[in-house]
C-alpha cells in the first residue's frame, strides 16, 4: 500500500482556522446589522443595534491584530506547486486587501464615533479614547469612508469565497481543505 502520509496537505494551524471562522461569523452578523440599524427610527432598539455593531467592530479589530501577529509567528502553509502563479498573486493580493480592510473599517468607525461625540464603550466597560474631537463635517466624510470600505470588503469577500469554492469544486484541489480540514481530501 502506498504511503499516503507522503502526500499530506499542508494545513493552517488550529488557531488560525478558529480565528478565521470566528471573524467570518462576526462579519456575517455585523454587516446586515448595519443595513438594518441605519433605517430604524430613533428608539432603544436603534441604540442597541448601533452599540452592538460597534462592539462587533472592535472585536474584529482586536482579532485581526491577533491573527496578523500569529501569522508572523506561524506563516501560512505554502500553496501546492500545481497552482498557477497568477492565482498565487491573486490570493496574496486579496488576503492583504482583507487584512487592510479589517483594520481600516473598524478604525474609520472609531473616528466616526469620535467625530459624532458619541464614544465607544466596549462591552459597556472599556471607553475607547476619542481619536478626534466633535466635528460634523468629518462625521459626514467618515460615514462615506466607512460605507465605501465596507462595500470594498463585500466585493473582496465575494471574490475570496467564490475562489475557495472554485478550487474545491472545479479545480478539485486542497485549497479549501486547508481552512476546513473536515472536508474530504480530493
Amino acid at each position, binding site marked *: 500500500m502506498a504511503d499516503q502520509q507522503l502526500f499530506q496537505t499542508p494545513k493552517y494551524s488550529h488557531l488560525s482556522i478558529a480565528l478565521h471562522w470566528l471573524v467570518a461569523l462576526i462579519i456575517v452578523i455585523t454587516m446586515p446589522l448595519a443595513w438594518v440599524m441605519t433605517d430604524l427610527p430613533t428608539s*432603544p432598539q436603534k441604540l442597541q443595534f448601533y*452599540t452592538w455593531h460597534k462592539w462587533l467592530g472592535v472585536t474584529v479589530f482586536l482579532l485581526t491584530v491577533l491573527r496578523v501577529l500569529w501569522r508572523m509567528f506561524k506563516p501560512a502553509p505554502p500553496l501546492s506547486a500545481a497552482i498557477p502563479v497568477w492565482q498565487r498573486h491573486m490570493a496574496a493580493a486579496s488576503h492583504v486587501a482583507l487584512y487592510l480592510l479589517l483594520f481600516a473599517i473598524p478604525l474609520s468607525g472609531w473616528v466616526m464615533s469620535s467625530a*459624532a*461625540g458619541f464614544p465607544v*464603550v466596549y462591552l459597556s466597560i472599556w471607553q475607547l479614547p476619542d481619536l478626534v474631537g466633535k466635528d460634523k463635517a468629518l462625521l459626514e466624510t467618515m460615514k462615506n469612508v466607512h460605507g465605501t470600505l465596507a462595500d470594498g470588503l463585500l466585493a473582496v469577500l465575494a471574490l475570496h469565497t467564490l475562489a475557495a469554492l472554485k478550487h474545491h469544486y472545479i479545480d478539485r484541489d486542497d485549497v479549501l481543505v486547508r481552512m476546513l480540514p473536515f472536508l474530504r481530501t480530493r
Partner: protein
Amino acid sequence: MRRSLLAVLCMLPLAGQAATPLVHDEVRFAVRMMGAPVEGVFRRVSAQLVFEPAAPQKSQANITIDLNSAELGSDEATAEVKQRDWFDTATYPSARFVSSAVHRLADGTYEVSGRMTLKGRSHDLTVPFRVQTAGQARIFSGSFVLHRLDYAVGSGEWADTSSVGNDVTVRFRFSQPLSNP
C-alpha cells in the same frame, strides 16, 4: 403704579432681601446610554438668588430652565429630547427649582433643599454647592444626581434603564455680581 406693585408682589417669595438675578454660566447634564456617556447643556436658564453668607439659612434660590434650549451631541438627539417621551417641551416648556432651606455644612460647603418640578411632576431635591469669590463676583457651583424616571423623562419604550441610565448627573455654575465687595 400697578406695574410697580406687580413687580413688588413678584419679589415677595424672596422677601426680606432684594433678589439678585444670577448670571447663568452653565447647567450641563450627562447620562449613560449602554455605558456610553451622553452630554447635554441648557442654553437658557434664569435664576434668582438671595444669599446671606452670614446667615445662610435666610438664603433662597429660584431657578427656571427653558427645556427648549436643551442641546445634545447630535441634531437627532437634540430633537428627540424635546419629544413626548422625554421632556415633552410642547406641554412642559420649563423646569423649576424653588428652595425652601439652605444650610451651611461643617466643611464650608452648602446644601439647598427645595422642590424640583419637571414634566409636571414635583419632588423634593437637595443640592450640595460651594461658594467661591472670583474678582467682583460670587460663584455658586455644584453637581447632583437626578433620577429621570422620577419625572417620567424617558417614558414608554425608553423607561428601560439598560438603554438609557436612570441616573442623570447635573452640573451647574452661576455667578452673582457683587455690588459691594
